[in-house]
């Protein structure tokens, strides 16, 4: 096609309007590069269309350009500062959240620890209370025993150790004749060997008649190292022998630890 034919074809007008299919647009572009008159023709078409569109437009506000300029500058600024500043609120937020979580965990642990130690303390308190009540009971018991032993109704006797068996041993007897009650303090006796037990005897001298009063064991214990025996037959002497467990019918005289006469 000659330049004149191209100009007359109507393709250039469509080209400027943007209505020409791509392959024909390429042809026009090739023609523009080759023929200055085609370029000139296109410029004239464009100019008249440009003026037509301008006449249709209402007055364009100056603010429109200001707005465009601000927008493209904001976009640029945001692009520059994005990496540096935009992340801070997020970082701060996350840091605060992590600190907060850590704080909660720490406080939970503290509470847990406190609860545990409170429990331990409570248990210790209970144990101490029990111990205290035991000690108080014991003290009351001892005081009671002491009261009894101090009263004038009780007579005190010291049973010296048998020279043959236990020269160092001794025992103390507090005896209430009226009520036939005896308290025996065995602190001066050695601890009985395994399987053996001390037995307390009431003795009549003429003729020698031993009567078992009971065993020195937990059943008769009245206080620390002090044992109580009731229905104690009025004796003339007290004896304590070491007997096999459960006690004996008659005293094993070879194991007589202490013996004391009642002197009236």
């Amino acid at each position, binding site marked *: 096609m000659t330049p004149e034919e191209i100009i007359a074809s109507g393709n*250039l007008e469509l080209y400027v309007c943007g209505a020409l299919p791509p392959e024909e647009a390429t042809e026009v572009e090739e023609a523009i590069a080759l023929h200055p008159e085609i370029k000139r023709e296109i410029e004239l078409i464009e100019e*008249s269309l440009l003026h037509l569109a301008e006449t249709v437009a209402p007055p*364009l506000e100056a603010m429109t350009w200001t707005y465009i300029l601000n927008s493209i500058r904001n976009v640029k600024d945001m692009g520059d500062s994005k990496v540096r500043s935009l992340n801070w609120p997020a970082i701060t937020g996350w840091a605060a959240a992590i600190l907060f979580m850590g704080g909660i965990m720490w406080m939970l642990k503290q509470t847990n620890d406190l609860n545990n130690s409170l429990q331990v303390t409570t248990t210790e308190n209970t144990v101490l209370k029990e111990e205290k009540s035991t000690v108080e009971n014991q003290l009351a018991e001892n005081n009671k025993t002491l009261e009894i032993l101090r009263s004038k109704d009780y007579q005190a006797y010291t049973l010296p150790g048998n020279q043959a068996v236990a020269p160092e041993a001794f025992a103390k007897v507090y005896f209430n004749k009226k009520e036939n009650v005896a308290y025996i303090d065995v602190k001066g006796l050695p601890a009985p060997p395994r399987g053996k037990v001390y037995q307390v005897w009431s003795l009549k001298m003429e003729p020698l008649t031993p009567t078992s009063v009971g065993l020195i064991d937990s059943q008769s214990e009245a206080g620390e190292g002090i044992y109580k025996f009731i229905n104690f037959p009025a004796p003339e002497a007290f004896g304590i022998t070491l007997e096999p467990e459960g006690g004996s019918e008659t005293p094993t005289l070879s194991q007589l630890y202490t013996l004391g006469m009642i002197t009236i």
Partner: protein
Amino acid sequence: MEQPNDLIIAMQNGDEKAFSRLYTMYGEAIYGIIYSIVLDENTAEELVQDVFIKVWNNASSYSVKKGRFFTWLLNIARNTAIDETRSKAFKNTRKNLSTTNFVDILSSSDSLNRATNAIGLKKFVDALKPACIKIIDLLYFKGFTQAEASKTLEIPIGTIKTRNRTCINELRVMVLG
């Protein structure tokens, strides 16, 4: 008017002054195109802003070796305006825009750009044949393809091309003298 390729290249390299001068050269025409589609000054001004922000952001996608800069702008402007007319918000406020063309705007509006020119334009608007008004409106202002214009106007596709040339020639004589 020769295409200001040096300004275009400067803009593509981020030169705001060059961009400003291109806006001065093409802004009103783009406004006219958009206004003829959306027929609302505020909407049209907002869309002009959108179009030129797009132009700045996508400047590298245009090449001075391929196609006219004005045609490139025209496509962005028409697509932006047509997208707007398809939006829900727009549809709720306005209807039946397709029946309005640039001549209707010229005849009805009393706040036209370039008052002196507008007086002269009245004459050429009267002089332009109704057939020319329709075909320029579709191909230029509304961005129709030849086939679409042929279907809408119910004339053969070959006739579209030649009639468009004749009509724009008439326009040239009146606008450029």
